[in-house]
């Protein structure tokens, strides 16, 4: 560290007889870590800063009559600190005795037992027995704090890490202390359930067993867990994650505290808790072939042969243009590479990773790819389209950090970038650019990758920017975790190949004979649900690799049961272009195969040579590091945005980490988190259509498109005259609207008179 700090800013401090030089202002607790002297802490946390509450970090400092707290004492030059002196140890013993006075000794049934700081420090510094002979005070136990968290008030030592996390990191301020003195307890500020995209982090911050996850309570003991470190495959942020397995099942996932570069040590609740699907009864465990309208179980050899023959026959009959493959955004880099490698070897160019609304994971040859940590240092953050708060929560924590440090947050269009921090909403990109304060040095744009015109506007603006005075970073959080990797390894059509829409249109018109869909569910996510369904119905051979019988798999000819991201090993690429390791944490169910293994078998049958593993790895890293040489973006269609009239409502399609049909729909324990179909509206627009909160409505658009069964919810953040619908909710998929921009209310039911159509 001294290499980067000028010598004048260093001070010399002596800790337990060891001299060390540290930058001025370093806290004693942090300085001590440099010599591997861990001063015990409860309330202090490097990411939350000092709070001075628990008083366990007492140290003796020469020249100071009283013990000092190491967490809020910056080192001074020539300071002599004793962390293990008799006096310091006596102070810690005293604090531990006090902390344990009313703490229940239920360690044998406590989830934290074995990894509890109170247990550990009581062993190291405590006195063994309490001198209090009165009854311990009793407080509420097993308090249901919300959909994910249970709180044991008796175990709580009031370090307030959870409250401070919810204040300083998420800025949501849902948690607080109620009552005072010995009666103080943790509660939600509103009395309503603790809901946030980040609740799981408080269970890790909790130094004792007070806050526990519903998904992990009483399921395992830390010493029985077998830990694997991997990359979370739920979104494109690429958070590093520990997977703790017990008897070959996933017991829980934990953040990687040292992962400063990507996750900053946090996980979102989708990434953390969506693990139950791995052992769900709905997992596909055998290849299924449709014969005479019935699914029959077949063996893997037959399945791959069917696939190989279908592709070979189609090419022989109608040429390579009659074959296509879609997938890659949910696959590993290696798998996505193999997919395009095998198909290109056959001359197929109908290749695309895109199965949803995104047009590009990376818009073009702009060398301005931002890294996660840089986002927190921005002076201005502009979100263009669906904001990262809805698609990439942990990246959004960097946005919140930037805004808390004084950055200006601007969101463009209908979406609001933040409901918790100050945010300017403007109509167009040109308006956003005007709002950039003069003197801003670091501008970050987070684009949702959906509208082509946005990318052109960003590119034009960035091209005119004076890069000598202003740095500019672009972030494109994808709909799929490995969108960037799939695109980098070549899962985009070249040389006249068709993109996904092109393939679907060709298929609908009877021009496609064989289509492979690997890890995609276009029936739920492709913006035109009717087209996707028509295309799959019209294609003679559709092979789908999936974990579950999804909307798309139901329309397949052949279904291949795939491994989940916890069951295979390889790499994925995050939105910043980092190639990150994915490691198998648990064995895959019998009769499932990783998509990569399916492709290897397919290549074998088709006689296609594959690159050696080492060469493949080098190729992937090279492709991810290079500025993607993607085909240029098409020109924007220039069609003006339709404006809702007095009779219609404008449709805003939003995203959520708690929508989706696959892993989330098949996780029993997350039922409370799954979104129900809702139509969020400004109360004024609801009033104009004589709607009340809780009413059930059906929407109708042009060309007879319909979306039925939405519940009206009021939200003043939704612009007037609009209705906001979250994409990917299986019970009411927004893609059924086929991109309709204006809808009418086709039917409504009062909440009170359920079942009766008005």
């Amino acid at each position, binding site marked *: 560290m001294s290499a980067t700090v000028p010598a004048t800013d260093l001070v010399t401090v002596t800790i337990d007889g060891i001299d060390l030089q540290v930058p001025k202002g370093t806290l004693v607790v942090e300085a001590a870590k440099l010599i591997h002297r861990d001063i015990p802490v409860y309330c202090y946390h490097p990411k939350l800063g000092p709070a*001075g509450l628990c008083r366990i970090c*007492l140290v003796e400092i020469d020249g100071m009559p009283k013990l000092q707290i190491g967490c809020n004492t910056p080192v001074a030059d020539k300071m002599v600190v004793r962390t293990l002196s008799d006096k310091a140890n006596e102070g810690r013993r005293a604090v531990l005795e006090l902390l344990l*006075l*009313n703490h229940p000794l239920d360690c044998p049934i406590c989830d934290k037992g074995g990894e509890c700081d109170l247990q550990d420090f009581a062993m190291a510094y405590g006195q063994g*027995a309490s*001198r*209090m002979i009165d009854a311990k005070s009793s407080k509420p136990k097993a308090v249901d704090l919300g959909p994910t968290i249970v709180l044991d008030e008796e175990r709580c030592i009031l370090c307030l890490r959870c409250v401070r996390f919810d204040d300083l990191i998420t800025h949501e301020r849902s948690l607080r*202390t109620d009552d*005072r003195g010995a009666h103080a307890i943790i509660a939600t500020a509103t009395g309503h359930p603790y809901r946030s995209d980040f609740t799981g982090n408080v269970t890790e911050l909790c130094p004792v067993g007070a806050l526990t996850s519903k998904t992990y309570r009483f399921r395992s003991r830390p010493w029985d867990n077998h830990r694997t470190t991997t990359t979370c495959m739920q979104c494109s942020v690429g958070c590093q994650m520990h997977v703790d397995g017990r008897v070959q099942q996933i017991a829980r996932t934990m953040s990687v505290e040292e992962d400063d570069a990507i996750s900053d040590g946090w996980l979102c609740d989708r990434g953390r808790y969506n693990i139950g699907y791995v052992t769900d009864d709905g997992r596909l465990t055998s290849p299924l072939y449709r014969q005479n309208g019935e699914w029959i179980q077949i063996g893997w050899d037959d399945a791959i042969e069917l696939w190989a023959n279908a592709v070979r026959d189609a090419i022989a009959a109608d040429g390579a243009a009659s074959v296509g493959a879609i997938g890659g955004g949910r696959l590993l880099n290696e798998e996505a590479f193999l997919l395009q490698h095998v198909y290109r070897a056959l001359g197929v160019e109908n290749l695309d990773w895109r199965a949803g609304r995104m047009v590009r994971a990376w818009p073009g040859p702009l060398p301005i790819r931002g890294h996660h940590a840089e986002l927190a240092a921005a002076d201005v953050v502009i979100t263009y389209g669906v904001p990262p708060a809805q698609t990439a929560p942990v990246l959004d924590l960097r946005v919140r950090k930037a805004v808390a440090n004084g950055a200006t947050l601007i969101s463009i269009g209908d979406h609001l970038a933040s409901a918790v921090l100050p945010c300017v909403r403007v109509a167009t990109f040109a308006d956003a650019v005007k709002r950039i304060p003069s003197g801003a040095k670091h501008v970050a744009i987070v684009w949702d990758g959906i509208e082509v015109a946005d990318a052109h506007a960003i590119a034009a603006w960035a091209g005119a920017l004076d890069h000598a005075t202003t740095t500019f970073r672009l972030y494109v959080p994808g709909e799929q975790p490995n969108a960037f990797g799939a695109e980098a390894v070549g899962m985009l059509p070249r040389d006249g190949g068709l993109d996904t829409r092109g393939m679907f249109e060709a298929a609908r018109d009877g021009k496609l004979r064989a289509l492979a869909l690997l890890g995609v569910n276009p029936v739920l996510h492709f913006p035109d649900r009717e087209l996707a369904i028509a295309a799959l119905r019209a294609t003679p051979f559709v092979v789908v690799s999936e974990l579950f019988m999804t909307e798309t798999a139901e329309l397949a000819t052949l279904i291949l049961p795939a491994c989940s991201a916890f069951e295979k090993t390889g790499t994925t690429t995050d939105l910043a272009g980092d190639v990150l390791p994915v490691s198998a944490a648990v064995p895959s169910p019998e009769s499932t195969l990783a998509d990569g293994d399916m492709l290897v078998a397919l290549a074998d049958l088709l006689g296609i040579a594959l690159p050696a593993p080492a060469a493949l790895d080098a190729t992937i890293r090279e492709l991810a590091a290079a500025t993607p040489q993607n085909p240029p973006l098409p020109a924007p269609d220039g069609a003006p945005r339709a404006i809702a009239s007095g009779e219609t409502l404008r449709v805003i399609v939003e995203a959520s980490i708690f929508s989706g049909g696959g892993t989330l729909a098949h996780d029993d324990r997350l039922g409370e988190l799954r979104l129900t179909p809702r139509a969020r509206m400004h109360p004024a627009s609801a009033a104009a259509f004589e709607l009340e909160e809780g009413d059930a409505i059906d929407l109708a658009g042009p060309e007879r498109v319909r979306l039925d069964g939405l519940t009206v919810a009021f939200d003043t953040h939704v612009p007037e005259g609009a209705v906001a619908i979250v994409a990917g909710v299986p019970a009411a998929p927004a893609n059924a609207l086929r991109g309709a921009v204006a809808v009418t209310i086709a039917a409504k039911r009062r909440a009170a008179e359920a079942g009766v159509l008005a």
Partner: protein
Amino acid sequence: MASPVVEILTKGIGELNLRDIDVYRSTGGYVQLERAVKELGQKAVADECTGSNLRGRGGAGFPTGRKWSFLPNNGRPRYIVCNCDEAEPGTFKDHMLLEQTPHQIIEGILIAAYAIGCHHAFIYIRGEFQDGFEIMRDAARQAREAGIIGKGIFGSDYDLEFTIHRGAGAYICGEETGLLNSLEGKRGEPRLKPPFPAIKGLYGEPTVVNNVETLAYLPHILKHGAAWFASVGPERSPGYKVVSISGHVKKPGNYEVPLGITIRQLIDECAGGLRDGRTFLGVQPGGGSSACLFEEHLDLSYDFDTIAKAGSMLGSGAMVVFDDTTDFVKASFALIRFYAHESCGQCTPCREGGSWIEKTLARIIDGRGVPSDIDVMKSACHQITGLNLCALGDSIEPFLGSVLDRFEGQFRAYIERATPVPERVAV
């Protein structure tokens, strides 16, 4: 016997309606403020106040001028907050000043605000002081109508906004950073220091928090000069002080005296002495948070340094006198229960230690004490002191510690009379 009682702040109380701005002005009120803003200028006012060696009358006794000098010249707005959250057990001087001489307090606040270059002053009034709040509100309205609060005070170019804020009933909000949190609308709990309020106080800006009585002396210091105040009493602890005397005396009440007279004088010459036929056992010299002093201390000089040297503190200047009818077990319990009840619960020693000792004393009084309680309490007193985030936690122990040493027999008597209970070994 010549009474040491003087009338500086207390002049006119009980005789004149000093709540009326005209009456207050007829006694020379607001003259010093006008002089300050029109003649003296900011530096001269600050120098005069600093030169008086006035020490804070709220409890800590910190030199007022030095506190002001910590404000950084960073061009940021700065605030002054008058702490009128008087809740220290035994203290009732600010209560009287608030209800009797609100204009004197306003004048003091405005002089201090002017001296430090602040344009928005606050007074934080204890929630229970309903009458005091109404009186202060009326006084502030009168002052505003008279052009004393607001834009261009006394026709000068000095502007000052003045806000009255009521507490919601928590002792901890008398702690200056707890007060600032409460004033900002947050939970009233002390902040971690450093940073101190002078650097980062109200709304994150440099802030001075001064006690009511401290500020009320400022007009008088300007009137008579710093030397007048500094020459009274001990050099390092000079001036006058309103002392609230309560407990086993004939005439409990507020007495304004020069610092440096003896404790015995305060009890005998001010408060009329003990009740007839009673003997003196002890006295708390500075409110509920101060350790008890005993017979051998009666002739000590009543000033900040001497009382501190004797192992107690002058605190807010609230003397509670105990005669030989005192049950120190119950007296300790009453105080400990107060501190345990008022603990904000943030930091471990105060939260856990206070309730531990409260439980122990309750059990002793209930006749279920055990012999080891004495040593455990002594040890617990020791281990909760000096480790806390704020001064409240350090206020739990002094009284109990001092009377436990001196009157251990009273505690033992409770325990010996106790119904024997098996001494359970807790783990």
